């Protein structure tokens, strides 16, 4: 069965303090690795899809990278509005989600 492990569970950052979130996975046939952002009381918001090792995607202060065993979501110079839970998911025939990393950015 597919397994997705995210670390850390929670991350508290000062505004401007860059950091990285980790997503390690095991999957029989990777069709894609996905990053989502989820705000309290809302559904997940799609951020990125990565399909192959070495691929990178960027959006504003976020950059996602992928290796054969893990993915990183780098947050550069975060702002308070980046506070959210970030979810990682892998897909073979279905999406399997990790438990998420809750990021809090203090002004």
């Amino acid at each position, binding site marked *: 069965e597919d397994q997705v492990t995210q670390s850390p569970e929670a991350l508290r950052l000062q505004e401007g303090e860059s950091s990285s979130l980790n997503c390690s996975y095991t999957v029989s046939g990777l069709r*894609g690795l996905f990053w989502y952002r989820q705000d309290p009381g809302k*559904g997940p918001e799609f951020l990125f*899809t990565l399909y192959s090792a070495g691929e990178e995607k960027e959006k504003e202060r976020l950059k996602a990278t992928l290796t054969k065993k893990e993915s990183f979501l780098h947050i550069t110079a975060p702002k308070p509005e980046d506070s959210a839970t970030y979810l990682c998911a892998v897909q073979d025939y279905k*999406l399997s989600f990790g438990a998420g990393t809750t990021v809090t950015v203090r002004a």
Partner: protein
Amino acid sequence: SAVISQKPSRDICQRGTSLTIQCQVDSQVTMMFWYRQQPGQSLTLIATANQGSEATYESGFVIDKFPISRPNLTFSTLTVSNMSPEDSSIYLCSVPSGRGYNEQFFGPGTRLTVL
């Protein structure tokens, strides 16, 4: 990306009753997915709803507890039957989109509390 709406956005229900959650998409899609997100946990796929056929349920979920309807290509319902407090969760629908329909976009969710 697809625009997805869900009704109700939240509800508080009594033990033993049933609640039907609606999911409406602004475009026609073949597959729709229903997920559960229990408090403090991540998303778990309940079932895949295909138009014109029976829904496909994941291990641990059964049709008697979570009946699904898919009357057309833009709409689906999930019923949570004979509810207990353990059913208190956020229920989300999603649809595939993007490159090769490999990406999923989620509705806003329905927050269910069972007393």
